[in-house]
């Protein structure tokens, strides 16, 4: 369903600022996401540009609603109309009208959104990888730099031919492919080590891999432990996971973690231990 003005306030929706050639796929992927349908609000920076590129228009039908707003995405009134204060995430795409200098405007849009709602998960598309460092001072949550991605993929492909197939597989959101998920440590597994949880997954024969964990402590940047090392490293395979920590899993569906909880529960009942 597509509408040009939000008749009612949306919540837990995704706001996309600026349009470029990536729009159809991004909207399509978001609306195809498993679970609750996602509503998308599109803030189009230039009506003429939008109308000149019909190929950019996402399919009209799909799960969730698609709302179109026209105007400058850093405009406070427009952000309020998009109900950013209730949004789950905001994607700021680079403006093709600005060419290679689009990063400055994208960053300022992200800052404006963060000011409206500091809780929103902001994802920004950057053109030049050299600008990535400047964004550390802001509260932007994730930076996707196409250039950076291309450079790393080129190097990976050069050193380890074929490895891009694995990345393409992981990045695709089709139902038969795997993705990386970062779910919270399920309550019954809080207080266990990464090694114990990984062992249980293997012993229960569950079709996903626990590759690591993210430690979240108060007033600290999250610590990513992908492929944790052995004993004397910190954090390591035997680090005890707390309720705020996240697991890094590669799976077709994050809900597979429920199977682990179920399996662990059954084992606890059977053997008295996890």
């Amino acid at each position: 369903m597509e509408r040009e003005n939000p008749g009612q306030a949306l919540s837990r929706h995704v706001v996309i600022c600026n349009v470029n050639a990536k729009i159809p796929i991004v909207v399509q992927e978001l609306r195809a996401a498993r679970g609750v349908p996602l509503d998308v609000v599109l803030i189009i920076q230039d009506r003429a540009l939008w109308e000149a590129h019909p190929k950019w228009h996402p399919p009209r039908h799909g799960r969730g609603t698609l709302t179109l707003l026209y105007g400058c995405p850093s405009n406070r009134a427009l952000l309020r109309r998009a109900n950013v204060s209730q949004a789950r995430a905001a994607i700021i795409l680079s403006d093709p009208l600005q060419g290679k200098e689009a990063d400055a405007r994208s960053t300022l849009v992200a800052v404006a959104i963060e000011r409206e709602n500091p809780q929103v998960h902001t994802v920004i598309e950057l053109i030049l990888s050299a600008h990535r460092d400047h964004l550390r001072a802001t509260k932007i949550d994730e930076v996707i730099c196409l250039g950076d991605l291309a450079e790393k993929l080129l190097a990976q492909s050069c050193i380890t031919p074929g490895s891009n197939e694995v990345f393409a597989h992981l990045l695709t959101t089709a139902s038969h492919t795997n993705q990386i998920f970062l779910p919270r440590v399920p309550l019954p597994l809080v207080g266990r080590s990464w090694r114990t949880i990984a062992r249980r997954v293997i012993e229960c024969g569950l079709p996903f891999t626990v590759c690591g964990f993210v430690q979240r402590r108060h007033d600290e940047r999250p610590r990513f432990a992908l492929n944790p090392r052995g004993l004397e490293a910190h954090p390591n395979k035997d680090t005890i996971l707390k309720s705020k920590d996240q697991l890094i899993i590669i799976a077709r569906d994050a809900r597979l973690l429920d199977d682990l909880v179920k399996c662990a529960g059954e084992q606890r009942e059977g053997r008295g231990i996890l």
Partner: protein
Amino acid sequence: MKRPPLRYRIRRIMEPYNAEPDQTKLSLWVDLFILFSIVSSCLLIPFEHLYSTDTHPFLHKVLWVGEVFFSLVFTIEYGLRWFGSKNRIAFPFTPYALIDLAAFLPTLLLLIYGLWAGQGFFLLRAFRGAQLLRTLRILRLLRILKFLRHGYAMYRLAVELRIWSGAIIYHYRLGRLARLLVMTLIAWVLGANIVHLTERMFGGDAGTYADYWRSYWEIIVVLISGMDASRPVTLLGSIEIVVLLFVGIVLVGMLTGEIVGVVMRSMDRHGRVPLKPPGLVLEQHILILGWNGHLDNVIRQIRAALHGHHYILIVSPDADQIPIINPEVYRRVLVLVGEPTQGEVLDEMSIPRALRAIILSGDRYGAAQDRDNHTLMQAVAITARRKDIPLTLELEDRESLRYARALRGAECIVSQPYGELMLCQAVLNPGVTEVYDELLTFTDDSSEIYAAPCPEALVGLSYAQAQLYFLDADEEALVLLGIDRSPADEVYTRFYLHPTASAGFSEEELKLKAEDRLIFIAYQRPSFAKPDEEDLWSGRILVRP
């Protein structure tokens, strides 16, 4: 980190040094000492045969002490290698072990025989009865073969030296300076002899030039400065000196011109990547065709992945303008100016000896489709020279992928689809970009995805058993992700991530086979899958040295 077992540490010390993270500098020193011992002990052998024991008894005593010392070194080396070997039963029968044994056994047997016979250590004469043992000592020459163990390292060193010296000779115009030196030498010797003969013939013993050796001094003064040189006594001699003065002016002028040229060129190219010397044949290098904003980060990534142990050659019509952003990163980077589709430029790239080739999308070719067409043409040109070169193309338009499929073995990166998917995943799984970033970045502290042959010990076990094995192996952090069962020349075309019975795999399918490749998340290529010499020589596998 937990300290690995002594046996493992000794094995890593005794293995040829490759600057791998778990190899210490001690390994390098051991290698150098062993190489020194091999050279020195081989040099002793001809001396023993050139000088008789009867005429040079002291020399023979010294040679014998040296021989005993080196034999003991080789014996200890053999013992340590045996102790640290993975399979102690099979070790003595390996080719390297047999060569090692031949290096010290003849001397050791002679020594034991001497002690048993109750003779002094240093008196070879006393062992005349042991003719057989003496003859066997000729086997010591086999110790030259010990170099084979360090064959790849020595080959790399030779390649490095050749490329480095080639670059130095080109950069400082040493070839032209050498030619100038030869011309000066000829003018000097000829001039000194001609003037000397003229003076002797027509002026007798009078004058400075009548003295043969003195005339050399005088002529060099004439050639270089012309000041304070003695005047010849004959008219013909004076004419010859005038000619030599002109020759000297020309030579000094040329020398000054060359030096100024080198200085000017250095100043002109300061801060820019050095040019590849024409005609210099590169080896085991990485080719990058084209230049755009991604170049710097691609070089950094490759350098981080290979610790800068391979030369990188950038080929582009405007390659001479590429700046050095970080001298350390650009230490082994050379540029070749020219259109990569031209025959002469392709010849200069040493394509048959290159390890990999990357073609970057050229910024100056207009629309995305034009850029892709140019990239594809370069790929065609490269593969026409060498069909099996591992090639990576940067394309901009998804449509181009359909044509690129015709290039067998070439990998194409169109970054836009990855970016679109990553944007969505960042919304759906907050924080996930950090994980991808770690997986995609080459550093010693980040993990990447590797595929390695299934270790022999795991063949026949189930996938779950292998997972548990790696989970408990604390000395090396590895997460087993899946199995790659694609043909050897088409890796990752048939792979399964976390195959389990619940995902529909049969018990037989879950059993690991010898031809399986395991997919890991690891900090470096798993230690059990070290590439063999052939892999390294051919460049099939690139490792962080």
